[in-house]
């Protein structure tokens, strides 16, 4: 057996250890009574370790669906997806990612602390360790002191922060966030954006972030994925190089406005197909 044959027999490995998400020629079609709906079509995407990737696009462009495919909450109908070099299902069972939904989805019968320890409980981690990790996670989102409160006793922004703490509690390297701040007002959103950025800079996690706000996407991301609808596809990938310790002030700089302009152009180009 030649060396070449051995290499060919080896299962495909990720290009490097630093690729977290590797998607190639992936499509997803929903079968409905009105015929097939092409939610995602021919998507190629690579997310590297430490990236902050934003998915931006109008409603119906499949950005949430893409995130759900990565999370194994939806199954692709074609193409290849590897998360940390394994299938999404395996990655989910390995608890490879923390997912933050559009709504806080805190369980009302559990205190904030017990909500944060929920995933740890399922992963059968010891009680002391659970409490310690919940304490640390709540500190990261500046919610320490609210452990014994119940979700409804907190404001919307605080609830969403608690749900982020829950996603952080088991220390997965990958954080998937589906419009986590979409329901919050702009002042709270700005504040949480800054907090999230600090958290990302400190923990060096990989973040995939769905949004439909251009300033949010440009401010947060190291990579912006612009998507367009019908069928959902990627039309532009923009890399940015703002400093990791940036503040909201960069939103007035020419570089920021230039990137925002390019995102807007991309979104407009995607929309022109509709006419």
């Amino acid at each position: 057996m030649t060396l070449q044959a051995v290499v060919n027999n080896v299962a495909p490995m990720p290009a490097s250890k630093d690729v977290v998400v590797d998607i190639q020629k992936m499509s997803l079609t929903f079968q409905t009574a009105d015929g097939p709906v092409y939610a995602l079509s021919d998507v190629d995407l690579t997310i590297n370790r430490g990236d902050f990737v934003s998915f931006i696009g109008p409603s119906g462009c499949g950005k949430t669906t893409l995130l759900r495919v990565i999370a194994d909450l939806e199954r692709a109908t074609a193409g290849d997806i590897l998360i940390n070099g394994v299938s999404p299902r395996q990655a989910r069972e390995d608890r490879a990612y923390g997912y933050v939904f559009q709504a806080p989805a805190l369980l009302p019968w559990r205190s904030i602390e017990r909500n944060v320890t929920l995933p740890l409980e399922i992963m059968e981690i010891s009680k002391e360790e659970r409490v310690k990790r919940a304490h640390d996670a709540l500190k990261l989102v500046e919610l320490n002191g609210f452990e014994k409160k119940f979700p409804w006793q907190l404001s919307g922004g605080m609830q969403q922060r608690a749900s982020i703490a829950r996603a952080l509690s088991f220390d997965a390297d990958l954080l998937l966030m589906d419009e986590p701040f979409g329901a919050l007002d702009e002042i709270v959103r700005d504040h949480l954006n800054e907090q999230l950025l600090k958290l990302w800079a400190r923990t060096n996690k990989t973040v995939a972030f769905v949004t439909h706000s251009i300033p949010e996407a440009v401010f947060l991301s190291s990579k912006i994925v612009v998507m367009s609808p019908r069928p959902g596809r990627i039309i532009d990938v923009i890399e940015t190089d703002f400093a990791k310790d940036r503040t909201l002030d960069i939103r007035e700089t020419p570089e920021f406005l230039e990137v925002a302009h390019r995102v807007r152009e991309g979104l407009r180009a995607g929309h022109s197909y509709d006419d």
Partner: protein
Amino acid sequence: MSGKLDKFCLVGAVFALLSLVFPLSGVDPETGKNVAFVSDLPGLASAMVACVVIGVFFTWSGVTSVLRGSIILLVVIYGAWQAIATLYDHGLAGYASYGFWMFIASLWALVWRGIDVIANYRTLDQGKQQTANIIVPLAFGIWLLFLWEVITAGFGVPQVLLPAPSMIGVRFVNSTGILWDDFRQTFLKAVLAGYVLGCGSGLLVAIAVDRVPFLKRGLLPLGNMVSALPIIGVAPIMVMWFGFDWQSKAAVIVIMTFFPMLVNTVSGLNAAGRLERDLMATYASGYWSTLFRLRLPAALPFIFNALKINSTLALIGAIVAEFFGTPIVGMGFRISTEVGRMNVDMVWAEIALAALAGTAFYGAVALAERKVTSWHPSFRVRRH
């Protein structure tokens, strides 16, 4: 003098005034004379005058405070006591006439106004507010008992038709031994056993139905049919199957309580939202873990709903089932035999016992619900 007259107090004052004028009693056919006169009864007369005085006073000055409401209630209590005393101590029972009824009408108007003030009482002091919250239904209940008493006594309603509450009370106190035996047989044995078995099996089958799709399609429609069965039809058969003792009654209760629990739990298990299920999926949470951590807690309000419905159904089922054969003890047995012996006061004592037991049972379940599902929006407000 304030601008607006207090109508209830005005009505109370007018009726009290008229009660002083109109004849208090009818004529005794044997003697051909009136049974009693207000002028011979200083107690009753003083109560009537007191009603006139406070009625007139509050008509003009208004019932503006809880203190004033309490004064009215005190006067009404005195008046009610005098009315009862007149009925029983001065031979008015069965002979009450216009004057007496006008006095009752006066009390009615005044008590209405007094309770109204206390019912609208709002304070931040928890203790005081709770006292006020308890006084209202209590006063209301006592007033209804009083009306029942004076109407049965005043009109001389035959005991077989409707005994006075005092009579039922006396019978209740004098037969605590029998009542306890009946309670033990019907409630402690049949109701509790049937309730636990019916609710428990309903819950377990609901979880199975939720897990196995063909059971959902096959069993639920069948279940709806069985739950529509009249228990009157099922009870004799259960007696044939399970014998005369409490087991057959428990079986009837199982049939009655099983399906409310099943149907409620099945819909409760679907109450957890899509988002929460996805959340559990992202943690790779297994079926049982998701069941106990998410779906059953989310179903608790539905389960408690069924528990509350079943708490009343169970008692009805046990009592009705006892009509179809039982050892010589039990609440249903007592009701059916004592009615045949015209001991209607005993029947009412059993009814009172059933009402007490049913209320306490329901109350205990509702209290447990409040403790266990205090997170639910319908209870949350109190915790702020």
